[in-house]
C-alpha cells in the first residue's frame, strides 16, 4: 500500500502568475530598505539622527555586544591590599581542572597565618576549556574569570602559556 498525501499548493492570482508585478513588489521592498538606510547613513555623516541605527552591524572590535555578568572569559588572579596574590597554593584548582592546564608550585609564606603562596602559577590557555571549575572550587576567591577579554590569540603555542605576572595584571581587562 502506498501512502499518498495531497499537498495543497496556494493558487496564484493572475497578477502573481505574470511574475512581473511580483518583481516590482519585491524591488519596492528592497528599494525602500535601500533608501531608508542610505538617508540615515548620509544624515549620520552630518551628525544628525544618530539615535536611529542605519545598520544592524556591530563594528567589532570597536563596539562589542554586551556580555552577561557571569560569562567566563580569560582568567585573572586577585590581589590582597598589599598587592600580593590571594592564592594560598592549596592546589584545589589544579586538581579539579578537567583539562589539567594549571601548573602551580608552592613556597613558604613569611606570615605564619598564611602558610603558603605560589612561586609559579601557569595556565596553558591552549588546553583550557573555559569550564569555570577553578573559579567555583577556589576557597579564597583568588582566581576569577571576569576580565571580559574574549580575543585570546597568539602567534605560537608558547605564547599561550600565561605566567603569574600576566595573570595578576591582565592587559586589556574590562572589569
Amino acid at each position, binding site marked *: 500500500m502506498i501512502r499518498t498525501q495531497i499537498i495543497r499548493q496556494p493558487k496564484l492570482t493572475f497578477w502573481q502568475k505574470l511574475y512581473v508585478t511580483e*518583481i516590482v513588489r*519585491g*524591488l519596492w521592498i*528592497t*528599494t525602500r*530598505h*535601500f533608501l531608508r538606510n542610505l538617508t540615515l547613513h548620509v544624515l549620520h555623516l552630518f551628525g544628525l539622527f544618530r539615535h536611529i541605527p542605519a545598520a544592524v*552591524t556591530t*563594528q567589532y572590535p570597536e563596539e562589542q555586544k554586551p556580555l552577561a555578568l557571569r560569562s567566563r572569559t580569560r582568567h585573572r588572579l586577585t590581589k590582597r591590599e598589599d598587592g600580593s596574590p590571594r592564592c594560598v597554593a592549596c592546589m584545589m584548582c589544579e586538581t579539579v581542572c578537567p583539562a589539567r592546564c594549571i601548573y602551580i608550585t608552592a613556597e613558604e609564606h613569611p606570615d605564619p597565618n598564611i602558610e603558603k603562596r605560589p612561586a609559579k602559577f601557569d595556565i596553558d590557555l591552549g588546553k583550557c576549556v573555559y569550564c569555570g571549575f577553578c573559579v567555583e572550587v577556589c576557597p579564597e576567591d583568588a582566581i576569577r574569570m571576569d576580565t571580559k577579554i574574549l580575543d585570546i590569540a597568539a602567534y605560537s603555542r608558547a605564547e599561550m602559556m600565561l605566567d603569574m605576572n600576566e595573570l595578576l595584571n591582565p592587559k586589556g581587562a574590562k572589569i
Partner: protein
Amino acid sequence: MEHFIIPAILSAFVLFNVINLAALHTWLERKQSAVMQDRIGANRAKIFGMKLLGLFHPIADTIKMFMKEDYTPPAGNRFLHALAPCLSIFFALVGFAAIPFGNTIEIGGHIIHLQAANLNVALLYIFAMMSMGVYGVVLAGFSSNNNYSFLGGLRASSQMISYEVALALTIMGLVIVYGTLDLQAMVHAQGKSIFGWIPKWGIFLQPVGFFLFLAAGLAETKRLPYDAPEGESEIVGYFVEYSGMKFGMFFFADYLETIMIASLTTTLFFGGWQVPWLSQGGFHFPWGAVWILSSLQVSLLQIASFSFKVLFFCWLFMAVRWTLPRFRYDQLMRLGWKIIFPISLINLFVTSVLILIFQ
C-alpha cells in the same frame, strides 16, 4: 595623422571610464547589497589610516588577484585556456566604441563628436561583438580538462545564444520606429517630443520592448536572476579551473557586459544623452520659459545626463540581483524561447501595423 589623434583620445576616455566603472562595480556590489540588507559593507581596508567608505577594497582585490598562483590544467589545451579570458574581455570592451555619450563638444575651435567610432550600423556592430563574447565562454568550458566545466560552458553558451535572438528581436521595433541603425541618429531622433511635452524617448514609444529588452539583456550577460551558469554555490561553473587574474578577467567581463547593457538601455530607451527640453541654445520648456546656456555647458550637461542614466541602470541591475531568486535552467530556457521570443514577435508585428497606419 590629425584625424587619428581625436578618435584615439576619445577611445582612451571611454575605456578609462568604463574600466573604472567596472572596477567600481565590485565596491558598488558590496556596498549596495549591504545597505539593502541593513548592514554596512566592507569597510576595513585602510591606506594611511583613511578608510574612505571601503573604496580601497577593489584595490586590495586586484592586488590579491595578481598575486595568486596562475594554474593551467596540465592535460587541457593550454593555448585555449589562456585565450578564453582574453576573448571575453576584448569583445566586451570593443563594443563600447559605438555608444554615443554626448552630442558634440567644441574645444579650441574643433568640433568633436562624442562617439568613439562613427558607425552607421552601430547597433549591428554592438550585437555582433556581444555574440562573439560567447566564444570566451565556450573555450573556457572546453579547454579545462573537466567534464563539469565543459557541461557548464555548454549551458552558458546555449543560454547566451538563445537570449541573443530575443534581444535582437526586441530592438527591431525600435529600429522600425526611428528608421535607423545609427545610435547617434537614434539619440538625435529622441530629442523631439510627442504632444509637445513628452520627450520622444524609446520607453514611451515601445514600453513592452523596454521590459523585454531588460529581461533579455540580463539573461544575455548571465546576471541574476539568470545566474545558472555561474551558479556560485550551487553548480560547478565553467570557470572552475581558472585562478588569479584569469578568473578576475571573467568577472571583469561580466561587469563590463552589465555596463554595456545599461548604456544600451539608456541610448535606446531613455534618450541617451538627451536632457528633456534641452536643445543647442539652452532649455526651451513647454510652458514657455527659456534658459539660455553656452554650448560648452550644454555639452557637459548632456554628458552628465548620460552618466547619470547609466549609473541608475547599473544600480537597478544590482538591485534586481539582490532581490530575485535564481531561475532553474529549464525555467530559464523556457522563458527565453516560449515567452520572450513570441512576445517580441508580437511587439514587432503591432509596431509595424501601427507605423503603417500612422504614416
